[in-house]
């Protein structure tokens, strides 16, 4: 393989690996948005909280990774359920803006709590795959990246099955289409919304636990929410497959921009994409058009 092609292949693999994380975060945000029309700005801080918790349990308490993963995921699920049941649920029926504000407020509180409990220093911890890598057709892939990709696609598949095949998943879909109608058909919409939050909390936890070893355990990790927003917009607001596709596309665009475009573009590529897509195709690449009736 020529060096140029090799570089391209390497970038593509890296892009998919990073994009898989974006996809996972984006799925969490889309889940909540579809069910409750709340755009959860606190999602990134749930992720930060899970990363710090995992660090405290692995590096601090010396627990094995396999025990920490389900523990933190369950903890975050319960926390997210509680956040909806106790706080976010109260603003149902108010303008969208209230939801944005409330989740920003929750994000601030979570961030403050994380800093108070764990301090402001960056941390790191090891996973069973840290340091290992495989060579494939001249492309180097870190073991951790492979695991992440596998995990993300597994979760995407599980969610797909969940929403297509299980009673609870179908009820959630129904509620997201029309809350009142679902309520009248005996679906307990409020409890269902809280369960969606819990589900999103679990995905945030998994994203946080796997992302942190790639970078650092740091409060700045919440910024990934913004990248996920770009992914969601690109994938056409409110569809899970769209979120996955968008996430991977953003990952790829960032990697390519870092090498093929001038210095500095890598950091803003995702945001430029978001702006351009929203201006040119306000409904995203895969979204459907809606008009408002008068």
């Amino acid at each position, binding site marked *: 393989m020529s060096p140029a092609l090799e570089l391209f292949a390497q970038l593509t693999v890296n892009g998919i690996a990073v994009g898989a994380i974006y996809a996972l975060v984006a799925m969490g945000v889309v889940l909540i948005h579809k069910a409750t029309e709340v755009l959860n700005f606190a999602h990134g801080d749930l992720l930060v909280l899970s990363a710090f918790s995992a660090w405290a349990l692995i590096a601090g308490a010396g627990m094995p990774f396999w025990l920490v993963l389900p523990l933190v995921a369950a903890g975050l699920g319960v926390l997210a359920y509680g956040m909806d049941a106790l706080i976010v649920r*109260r603003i149902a*029926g108010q303008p969208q803006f209230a939801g*944005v504000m409330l989740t920003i407020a929750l994000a601030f509180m979570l*961030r403050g709590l994380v800093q108070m409990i764990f301090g402001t220093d960056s941390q790191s911890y090891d996973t069973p795959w840290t340091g290992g890598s495989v060579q494939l057709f001249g492309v180097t892939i870190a073991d951790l990246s492979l695991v992440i990709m596998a995990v993300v696609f597994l979760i995407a598949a599980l969610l797909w099955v969940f929403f297509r095949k299980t009673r609870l998943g179908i009820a959630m879909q129904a509620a997201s289409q029309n*809350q009142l109608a679902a309520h009248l058909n005996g679906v307990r919409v409020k409890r269902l919304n809280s369960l969606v939050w819990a589900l999103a909390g679990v995905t945030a936890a998994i994203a946080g636990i796997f992302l942190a070893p790639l970078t650092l355990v740091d409060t700045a990790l919440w910024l990934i929410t*913004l990248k996920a927003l770009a992914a969601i917009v690109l994938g056409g607001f409110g569809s899970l497959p769209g979120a996955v596709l968008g996430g991977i596309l953003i990952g790829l665009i960032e990697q390519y921009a870092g090498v093929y475009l001038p210095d500095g573009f890598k950091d803003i590529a995702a*945001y430029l994409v978001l702006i351009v897509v929203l201006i040119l195709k306000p409904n995203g690449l895969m979204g459907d058009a*809606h008009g408002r009736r008068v």
Partner: protein
Amino acid sequence: MRFDYHTRYRQGFALLKHPADWVNYGVLLAALLVVPLVASNYFVGELSYVLILCVASLGLMTLSGFTGQISLGHASFVAIGAYGHAWLLAHGVPFILALPLAALISAGAGLVVGIPAIRVSGLYLAMVTLAFSIVVEQVIGMWRGVTGGFMGMLVETPSIAGISLGSPKVFYYLCLLVVVLVLLALANLLRSGIGRAFTGVRDSEAAAYALGIEVKRMKVGAFGLSAGITGLAGALMAHHIGYLTPDAFTLLLSLDLVLMVVIGGMGSLRGAILGAVLISMLPNGVALLKDVLPQSMARQSGLEIFVAGAVLAFFVLFEPTGLNGRWMKIRALLENFPLYRRDTFRRQKAYMKSERNR
């Protein structure tokens, strides 16, 4: 109880409707004018900062409160105003010209950002502005020739008619003058045709079109106006900071501004001022709180951001009309004392009002 007995239409839309208002606002202004004569330089400097935030908050209120367009990236306009102003000063433009020019540059940027507002609204617009502010932050960092990049840029200390602005007290009076002028201009504009058209666009686009309001022009114009005012605040901010770096204008400043307008109360100029005052006093309040708290909690740095979040959550949940709404309720209670009904301000509840198809 206060009764309005109007004999001419112009009494109905007077800026200050009651004699008592003249007294109250007069006393407030007089107090603000006297402060530098009695207070320390440090205190006056802090007060100037509050006034600057008031201007920025008024700028965002014009956009979010009156035309209903959410911006989560207003720090970028503060930055553009600050850098534009500093650059103009460095290139020999006199202060008195540089200040309005900086506002104009920022307004120009606002018009450009406003163009997406024609196509997208609500959450989508919030995301566009958010993305824009991150892009601006990076561009400032990269554009070394003009902005000094991440190394920063020194702001010159100019003088007007031989009086140096380096003195905190002179600077304070300048800030006060700007706040009063901006407030008067906005109050006038918002009780006239343009202001009504703004609220029309906010409350129902369909009806606004049907009444002949150029909705798109109003939206973009509001963006320009808002960015211009915010840029003016940025230009003043440049002098307050003295040395500009990109990390002075991050997302956190944008969110602080949003906090101000939400906590102050959407759609009210008084709310913008109240919000700015409360948010800028929050760090001081938290510092006081730390003295009371046990050592282990007090030394943590997260407390401030936690309190900011808690205050915001409190207002969203329990007082969506903000400080201004609370103020109106208290005033109504005092004025109508024995006759006050709890339900006067009760809002109607909707089960689920979908905004998906707006």
